[in-house]
């Protein structure tokens, strides 16, 4: 029986797929977090990941392919593209955790759903109808992410219908959030120390906490300004009269040589307006990522999904990043008070995927608490990423972030041909060392006590 906790962060290209095997007294608890990559990556990579996971499950469970928990952090292609029901046939799953944002009739996500629908249509229009538009890599990536992979979502959410259309119809689907939730309690989760958590392990010290998202999607992540814009934009698209539009009244914008409706339509179709909305939707989906903190045998592991940090700006009405909200909650809950033993870096190493700056009012960054210099070399840090997908203007992964993390990581590497300093292990750069057909970075953690 394996005693160490095993993590495999798979090399899927620009995306995430992480397998975690948690020793739980006389059994293993098997968890898979996400399975996706970008439209520019090969689907074959994801198929091979699933074959490898199934092989691990068979080895661990005497031939039975059983996954205890499948976590889908948020509905972006690079996290859900691999949820093809055909590939999951024969795989038994205990529970499927989906971000609360993905609940179709969520009463506190109406504006978020409107934004999502608008951005999907705008992304389609920009990608398929605006001709000769040559988009930058970053813009194309944003637009690709806005076009929801409907088939994968259906397969994850629904249990009825054709067996070819759904992933394990017997698995319980839970829309998870941090705050106290009756439905989740009925399904076996508990609310302790400020978060919903799974504590039904044989080892009572093992806890899987949901640090994000908040249940109130609109209130927490959209912000007043964003909500106003969504409403205004929806009205612009419906070509309703602009007479009472605050923007037109405030600025007197109306050319004399075209009609009001033509101008409204034009504004809604300008690249900036459309891209700005698509970016808002991209950020919203990222910020509703399921963020998990696993506490096991004295070890602390953080899986960040694509949660974003919106900096220390103090604009009252601006939307908040998930990290900002988690840090606010942490003032009461204290889950970031102790250092980490493992960090799966958020948002593929993007600068806004980690709370990189010092918070307003204090002189330390959150990294100093989670990855303190005094414990240098104690935390395993992994980045699941692919450089070059996002273009050069805002590079992903970000070199500044990588340098900072490299100074704190136990598994720091120096990669020839990349940045000069040490950085944490990266799936895209480790692939050149791999000998197996399925690339991954493997981390084993022994119990702390």
């Amino acid at each position: 029986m394996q005693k160490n906790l095993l993590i495999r962060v798979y090399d899927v290209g620009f995306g995430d797929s992480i397998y975690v095997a948690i020793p739980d007294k006389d059994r293993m608890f098997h968890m898979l977090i996400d399975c996706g990559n970008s439209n520019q990556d090969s689907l074959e990579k994801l198929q091979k990941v699933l074959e490898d996971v199934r092989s691990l499950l068979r080895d661990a469970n005497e031939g039975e392919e059983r996954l205890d928990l499948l976590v889908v952090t948020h509905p972006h292609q690079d996290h859900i593209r691999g949820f093809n029901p055909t590939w999951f046939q024969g795989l038994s799953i205990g529970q499927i955790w989906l971000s609360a944002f993905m609940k179709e009739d969520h009463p506190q996500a109406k504006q978020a759903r409107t934004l999502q629908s608008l951005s999907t249509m705008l992304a389609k229009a920009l990608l398929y109808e605006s001709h000769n538009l040559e988009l930058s890599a970053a813009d194309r990536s944003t637009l690709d992410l806005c076009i929801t992979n409907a088939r994968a979502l259906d397969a994850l959410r629904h249990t009825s219908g054709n067996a070819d259309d759904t992933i394990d119809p017997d698995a319980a689907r839970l829309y998870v959030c941090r705050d106290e939730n009756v439905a989740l309690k009925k399904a076996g989760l508990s609310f302790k120390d400020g978060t919903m958590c799974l504590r039904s392990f044989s080892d009572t010290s093992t806890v899987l906490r949901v640090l994000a998202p908040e249940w109130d999607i609109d209130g927490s992540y959209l912000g007043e300004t964003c909500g106003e814009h969504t409403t205004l934009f929806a009205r612009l698209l419906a070509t309703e009269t602009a007479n009472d539009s605050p923007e037109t009244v405030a600025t007197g914008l109306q050319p004399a040589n075209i009609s009001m409706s033509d101008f409204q339509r034009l504004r809604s179709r300008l690249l900036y307006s459309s891209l700005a909305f698509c970016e808002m939707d991209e950020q919203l989906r990222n910020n509703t990522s399921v963020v998990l903190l696993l506490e096991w045998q004295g070890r602390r592991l953080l899986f960040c999904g694509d949660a974003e940090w919106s900096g220390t700006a103090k604009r009252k009405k601006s939307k908040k990043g998930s990290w900002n909200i988690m840090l606010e909650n942490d003032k009461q809950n204290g889950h970031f008070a102790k250092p980490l033993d493992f960090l799966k870096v958020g948002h593929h190493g993007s600068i806004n995927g980690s709370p990189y700056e010092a918070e307003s009012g204090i002189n330390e960054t959150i990294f100093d608490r989670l990855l303190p210099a005094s414990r240098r070399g104690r935390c395993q840090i992994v980045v699941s990423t692919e450089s070059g997908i996002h273009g050069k203007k805002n590079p992903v992964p970000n070199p500044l972030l990588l340098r900072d993390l490299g100074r704190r990581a136990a598994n720091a590497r120096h990669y020839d041909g990349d940045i000069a300093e040490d950085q944490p292990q990266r799936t895209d750069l480790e692939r050149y060392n791999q000998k197996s057909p399925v690339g991954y970075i493997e981390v084993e953690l022994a119990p702390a006590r």
Partner: protein
Amino acid sequence: MPTPKKSAPAGEVRRPKNTLSKKLARQRLLGDLISPKLRTTLASRRWPLEVLRELDLMIKVPVYFEDPLVAKEIPELGPNMIEIAWEPGLADGPTSSRLAVVDYDGDAKRLEQPAHWVEEKRCFVNNPTAKKPLTSEHRNPHQFHQMNVWATVQRVLDFYEDATVLGRPVPWAFRGNRLIIVPHAGEGQNACYDPTSKSLQFYYFGEANRVYTCLSHDIVAHEAGHAVLDGIRPYFLDSFGLETAALHEFVADITAILSSLRNNDVRSFFIQSLEGKKPANFLENLAEQFGEAVENRPYLRTANNKFTMDDMPGRECHECSQILTGMVFDILLGLLESYWHERKRSAKQAAWDATQRITRLALQPLDYFPPVDAKFSDYAQAMLHRDYLLNPDDPYKYRSIIRQVCNTRKIPVPQDDKPIEAPYNLSYPPVNDLLASHTAAYHYLHANRKALRIPNRQDVVIVDVSAAERVGRDYFHLPREVIMQYLWAEDVTLDGREFGPLQGMAVPLLCGGTVVFDENSNFLYWARKPGTEEEKDQAEGRQRKQELLAHVADRVAAGDAEVYKRLTSGRFTTQSSLTESTLAQRLGLSNSSRLGD
């Protein structure tokens, strides 16, 4: 209608000479004698530009012939005066009958003051109190940019409507007659044609050395080319094939090249660059300034390339379009060689003759395209057949040049001059009836369903019926042509697991044809894209159907919703049983209102 002068290139301004200054004086006298009412009447009749010039009904506008970077390196290609036809109702913007400039910056959320039109002086100025006409030297450049982009697009439209090209008014594809031009749409390395908002959008970028795409003649003419082709073939943008998309890009690129060649100075520079007297070939490198600033490459695409159809697999449409652009450029060079060195004309005359010839060769065949899914071979065949109609004897073997170039580029093309045969049993059409109304044209089609291989059970749409009055060599007036496009949709069921949530639904396979007659009802040309229902066309129809199914399966496998657009947002109302709400549910999209509808 007065015969156009042989040696008067459209839109050009000649340097004044003694004889010309007399001519200008006569024009001005004539202009002064023409009352405003008569002037309006004359302008609204769409006389040839040469006639309007004689009547002093042109306005002079400074524009960049290339872009500011080229202008810096080659001053003679800097801002220069061109002539645009005056029309009644010219207004601030600029705004003309077919174009309206709206200088709205979506990034800064700012609406700039429009260039102001002064009717008495027949020029644009910076603002209502300004006295001097707009030039590129004005401190606030926005109004000059507005005028520059308007004049460039207007020139492209006039170029296409001229008797040497299509010889007819060019409609826009959208509902309406005025194309909106946005010269400073926002920050971005982009320009685009957006039919939904009826606009051409030009963006800007760069901090230290700002690049305005609205100042690049190549980029502006390119986008205008898209709008023109969309107007005459509105279903091309609904086609899924790579070659049709590449044809769109090709027409846009060749518009930039050929409209540039209309300028005396550009032609002169081109000849000198071929002779090695001037820097290397700038004409074939499109969008010089844009290309320099973006991706550190000297130009975005080049007409001087050796790509063939074998290079197409795995490429996207912009790359594939270079095959055709290169083909036409090769033909241009071949013609130039013939006129200059074989037929011993002066360089200047050879350049002009080659320009005229290649313009007719490359662009008049656009009217011979089928209404959907055009391929490179359709274009090559149309080009050859058009030339055969104009020059049956071909004494200088120019069709051999075309065939040779096509063969080198691996574009399938007939190897002899066998004329296109009329469909068997096709009746003579009453061409005036065809032009009278679409319903009248439909009656003709219906009576000839068998000949035109239109399935009896399919309802047919008349896409367009137009009359073209063109000129050929030496401005010889050609017989009027009547061009009719028709379309129907054959439902194709998506049967198979590869179609995922769309399984069981129907997708339209657009079929149709273009048939051309002269004014005496003689058959001239027929290009068609069949379905699977008519026996004689079944092989081709099945192949088209397989291509469509493969495309839909590919999109579904990729997990994107582009197929949604193909099924419901095309401009052709399909006979599919699919409703938008059903499909939206299947694909996980909500029923929010569609953009722009």
